[in-house]
């Protein structure tokens, strides 16, 4: 938490307790609580880095401790596909050696982190939770992963996901099911479900995910953590296994807005290896966690309550969004309702563009150079047999959708038209952002649903991303901030299920991250107190 500066480092493993540092704009007293309660006893990224950098704690000690927690807990959660313990401890010792020699180990010194399994980690299996890449060990690190390491962070393992990031529940993983720490019978969302669940359960203080149509924000919402999808081009995609190149972005999942800002600040910036990475870095690059952003408050901020991603949400989810809007209003923001009718085209356009790009991006998994290789005789036999056995049903469905959308005679009607919709969406957003600094809505139309509930209903599953997809098509930033809970629908529709986390989504224009983080930090300060997840490290 922000109070844990270098002068007052928390001891490793010690519960920090409720945050006592109330923001000035949280003092209206009319909110359900003052200050967020950490969902578990895990430390914040800020606190760990401060402790290691001040010499209060050793990086190796911190990493070993988190490895122990993962060892004890992950059997029940299923968040990790691989834990690279020895390599992590070795990396942590290098951080400690730097400290011992008086060198700066970096702003994230000794912070253990997890990385979604679609980001390349040198020598550590990177499989996208697919059979077709089982056991594949990349010879290089993704730029985002390398930047974290250069900042002193320690990657301890790779997290579960929907195969090739295609899905909204992590059930499309070819390896295992991941359970929501708030209710193990429910999904963590997806596709970055492993990262979200690991952070929510306190197994790791932060993780990287990737967001093509909501794959960071939706699981963040369902697991009660913070999840950020950056402006397209702010974080290098080099080493991120491509799903839909024009939509994919890497971003952080953390337990607090400040931690998200810290991770974002480290992974953002121009990368010559990614031609789509933004060349002229904005002034705020690297300093999103600065007080003039996180403590800025919302006085004078103009917030649009976006009806298209609020009204269609479940009533209890919608109520939390409205409460969040009221809270911001009380803190001094101007809140008005706004409608962008063009958003109704976003979901269909997305389900043409993303599969089209995916059908091409996934062509390389042909059994020729790496990964699974089956079949014999001709190259055609190897390619078709490998792909038939190596890809799961959802991946095949999208490859076929995309191949069809790009085919001669259909291109204009499908892919071409979807691209024109994208242009229309950007204009519609631009018009809204001439009036509003940020937009507000739900990050997911529902709370976490039950495992198996939607696996056989692709359209229902696709609707899970209806709130998040528009910003990907526009290339804009957006983030999900935990804001209380809503009772999950019961098993037979009548009975009431457990209280599950709700995420409020803050959307901003291209490169509008400072305003987005200011509003997110304010929301975090006024968010209702919630119970920690049932799967929580405190139970150990």
């Amino acid at each position: 938490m922000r109070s844990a500066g270098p002068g007052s480092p928390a001891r490793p493993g010690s519960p920090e307790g409720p945050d006592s540092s109330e923001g000035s704009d949280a003092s209206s007293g009319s909110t359900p609580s003052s200050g967020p309660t950490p969902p578990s006893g895990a430390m914040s990224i800020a606190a760990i880095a401060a402790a290691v950098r001040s010499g209060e704690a050793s990086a190796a000690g911190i990493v070993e401790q988190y490895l122990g927690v993962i060892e004890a807990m992950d059997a029940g959660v299923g968040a990790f596909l691989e834990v690279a313990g020895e390599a992590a401890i070795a990396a942590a010792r290098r951080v400690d050696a730097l400290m011992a020699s008086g060198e700066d180990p970096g702003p994230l010194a000794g912070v253990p982190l997890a990385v979604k399994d679609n980001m390349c980690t040198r020598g550590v299996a990177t499989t996208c939770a697919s059979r077709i890449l089982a056991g594949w060990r990349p010879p290089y690190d993704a730029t985002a992963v390398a930047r974290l390491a250069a900042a002193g962070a320690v990657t301890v393992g790779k997290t579960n996901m929907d195969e090739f990031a295609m899905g909204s529940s992590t059930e499309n993983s070819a390896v295992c099911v991941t359970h929501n720490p708030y209710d193990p019978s429910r999904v963590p969302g997806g596709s970055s479900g492993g990262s979200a669940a690991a952070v929510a359960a306190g197994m790791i203080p932060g993780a990287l995910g990737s967001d093509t149509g909501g794959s960071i924000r939706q699981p963040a919402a369902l697991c009660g953590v913070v999840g950020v999808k950056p402006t397209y081009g702010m974080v290098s995609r080099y080493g991120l296994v491509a799903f839909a190149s024009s939509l994919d972005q890497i971003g952080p999942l953390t337990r607090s807005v400040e931690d998200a800002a810290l991770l974002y600040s480290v992974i953002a910036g121009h990368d010559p290896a990614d031609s789509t990475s933004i060349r002229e870095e904005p002034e705020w690059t690297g300093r999103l966690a600065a007080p003039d952003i996180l403590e800025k408050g919302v006085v004078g901020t103009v917030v649009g309550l976006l009806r298209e991603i609020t009204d269609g949400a479940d009533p209890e989810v919608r109520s939390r969004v409205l409460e969040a809007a009221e809270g911001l209003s009380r803190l001094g923001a101007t809140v008005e309702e706004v409608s962008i009718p063009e958003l109704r085209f976003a979901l269909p356009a997305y389900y043409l563009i993303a599969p089209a790009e995916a059908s091409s991006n996934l062509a390389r998994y042909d059994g020729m150079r790496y990964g699974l290789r089956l079949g014999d005789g001709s190259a055609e036999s190897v390619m078709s047999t490998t792909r038939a056995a190596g890809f799961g049903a959802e991946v095949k469905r999208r490859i076929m959708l995309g191949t069809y959308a790009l085919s001669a005679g259909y291109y204009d009607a499908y892919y071409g038209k979807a691209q024109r919709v994208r242009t229309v969406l950007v204009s519609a957003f631009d018009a809204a952002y001439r009036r509003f600094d940020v937009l507000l809505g739900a990050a997911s139309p529902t709370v976490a649903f039950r495992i198996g509930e939607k696996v056989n209903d692709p359209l229902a599953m696709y609707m899970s991303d209806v709130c998040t997809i528009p910003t990907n098509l526009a290339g804009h930033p957006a983030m999900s901030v935990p804001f209380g809970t809503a009772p999950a629908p019961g098993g037979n529709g009548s009975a009431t299920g457990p209280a599950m986390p709700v995420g409020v989504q803050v959307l901003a224009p291209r490169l509008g991250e400072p305003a987005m983080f200011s509003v997110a930090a304010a929301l975090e300060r006024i968010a209702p107190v919630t119970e920690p997840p049932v799967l929580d490290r405190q139970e150990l």
Partner: protein
Amino acid sequence: MAVDASGGSVGYEPVIGLEVHCELATATKLFCSCPNSFGDEPNTNVCPVCLALPGSLPVLNERAVDLAIRVGLALHSDVRQCTFHRKNYFYPDMPKDYQISQYDEPLNAGGWLDLPSGTRVGVTRAHLEEDTGKTVHMGGTGRIHDATFSLVDYNRAGVPLLEIVSEPDIRSPQEAREYVAELRAILVAAGASKARMEEGSMRVDVNISVRPAGSASLATRCEIKNLNSLRSLVRALEYEIARQAEVYRSGGSVVQETRHFDEDTGRTASLRSKEEAHDYRYFEEPDLLRLVPGQERVDAIAAGLPAMPAQRRSEIAALFSSAGAGTGGGAGAGGAREDQIAGLVENGLDGLLLAAVNGGVSPEKALARTANEAASRIDEALALDPESYGRLLVMEEAGKLTATQVKAVLSEMLDEGRGDPAAIAKRLGFETMGAGSINASVEEVVASNAAEWDRYCSGEDKLAQFFIGQVMKATRGKADGKAVVAELQRLRSTR
């Protein structure tokens, strides 16, 4: 089908368009920093990007763009803002299973190329794309249908290619040959490509249809892929023209298809029909930005563009006409000279000739040495310093070196890639022999071979060769044969 390739096309006119792929002479590949190098150990010039490892991304090689613009300007194309597209199809030697190419917005649009014979051939476009790897089929005849396995070398994957598409303006196999030769000369002149068909750095596909002579309509065309020499190009076209003419003559119709030319039989055969053609599912490459070559950049490239082959050929031909062209011989020799000049220009060796002429060597001598000796080792000759080369020929012209010695010195220079001809001549023991020492040596040889001398003096001229041989032996080859004969004749006349 039996086709009489000699006279089978009477009454029909071919309509031919060419697609020429050439590898651009960059240091590195089009989208990564691997070396662009021919003939290396297989799969050594590879990295995550050109092997298409998961997560890798392309970064455009700006040098390749510059070279492509040079060619575009040389072909009078409009250099434009453009986009890259993905051409999707599965093949083991294409690591991504799509090729990054250009589609509806090429870098160079339009243009033309004037053939030496006078025909102007329109250029449709010249666009950038990446090369594939190379598949070698093992076992059987080495072709895919009876191979037991195949090996893929990805060194070539990602090498920058320029695809130059002509309008269907070509009307004979000879014109097609002329077009390819002239295009090759332009590519070399622009410094854009080595354009060697024998190394595969230049490859030719043809589109060919035939129509009744005098007709203006276009008939169904066939494509013949991967012709790897000018000879194959001509042979394949001759066969295909006759074949299509025969199809029409016998009342049939030509089917649109892709055909393969068999070097051994000299025939083309169907590879795949239009129905089997790939649907490439082109779409804009999302990993690359739009390419916007600014006017400033294009202007700078235009300003740095060297003289093109047509201009250089006429400049060299002018050397001969102004020198009187007396020694060249008749029209036949003139045609041979034109061919030699064209060959030097095509390979970029005309600079050597000019350096020699500028040094005072006669155009005839400079052409003979450059076309016969230097051009026999093109790669090494291209690395020569023209000024040094000029000085070597000047030494011959001045009688300081014999023809044999010049060839020996040049061979050394080509081996070393540089060198001062005078120093090499000295090292080889080719010190210039003064007239005095030659004459002394001739007198010695005459004195010790009295019988032969008598026969020579009585009119047996062929014995001059005997005396030359003896003098050469005595001087260890340093004497100039002509000087020896001159001294022999002087001695005989004063006897």
